[in-house]
């Protein structure tokens, strides 16, 4: 059976990601985005920023002071978000017409709750149980060089796609834009993950010429489409 290379994050880093990322997403979709509108009052924007600060400080504080961190990252953060919504008033109405954004924001809040729920059950833990039993699991092989950088770049591109999804403002196409953004982000991440894991294995198992030949048909189609695009642009420019 082929070895599956693994990259381990420390328990502290994993915990930070679990509690910080959903909160950040929920904050962005349901608080920051409405507060960024032109008719939002300054007080709402101030509480919006303070909510983000509370979330960040609370998440980091859980590493050393779980209770204080949870109080800041959950209670204070949530109260500041509520204050922002109250101060926004009519400016919050734009969310009413953005069903998908509101739904995704709700999912973000649910994940936020789940992520912080894990802090309560793990208060006082300093290591993964498996580490304590087995003395740590070492990977059987390593990732090819540059795999992490590639995956990092893909994450950045996926975030850009999600943000660009909001730029589609036509009502009939907004849902399509969000769907395309999410689907293409997921496809990119899956492909990058396969690439990061499979590069080393592929180099050992197949000759390079065979690998190139396997994609010849697709690449030919891409070249034809690009040619058609160039021709279309030239003709349209005349």
């Amino acid at each position, binding site marked *: 059976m082929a070895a599956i290379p693994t990259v381990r994050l420390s328990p502290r880093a994993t915990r930070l990601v679990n509690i910080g990322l959903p909160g950040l997403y929920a904050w962005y979709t349901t608080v920051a985005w409405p507060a960024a509108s032109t008719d939002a009052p300054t007080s709402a924007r101030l509480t919006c920023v303070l909510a983000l600060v509370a979330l960040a400080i609370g998440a980091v504080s859980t590493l050393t002071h779980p209770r204080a961190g949870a109080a800041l990252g959950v209670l204070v953060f949530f109260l500041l978000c509520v204050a922002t919504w109250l101060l926004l008033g009519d400016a919050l109405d734009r969310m009413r017409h953005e069903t998908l954004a509101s739904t995704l924001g709700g999912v973000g809040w649910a994940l936020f709750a789940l992520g912080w729920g894990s802090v309560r059950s793990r208060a006082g833990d300093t290591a993964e149980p498996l580490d304590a039993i087995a003395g740590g699991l070492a990977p059987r092989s390593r990732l090819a060089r540059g795999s992490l950088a590639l995956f990092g770049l893909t994450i950045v*591109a996926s975030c850009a796609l999600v943000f660009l999804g909001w730029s589609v403002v036509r009502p009939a196409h907004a849902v399509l834009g969000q769907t395309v953004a999410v689907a293409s982000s997921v496809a*990119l991440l899956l492909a990058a993950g396969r690439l990061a894991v499979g590069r080393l294995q592929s180099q050992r198992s197949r000759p390079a010429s065979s690998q190139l030949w396997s994609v010849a048909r697709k690449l030919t189609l891409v070249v034809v489409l690009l040619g058609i695009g160039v021709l279309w642009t030239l003709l349209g420019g005349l």
Partner: protein
Amino acid sequence: MAALIDVISVGFVLGAAACFIAALRALGAREDLAALYWLVIGALVLRSAVDLLRSGSGARS
């Protein structure tokens, strides 16, 4: 040669990302045909990147 395949496959993934970004920008600019065009190219390029790495005889082009 293996390093070249590596570079090509990484380039394909990044190229696919650029195509998807172009597609969304076109959709936002009300250019639906251009959006569809870039989506198709992006999907083909991304699939090629994955197929380049598939080991064994099961790869289909």
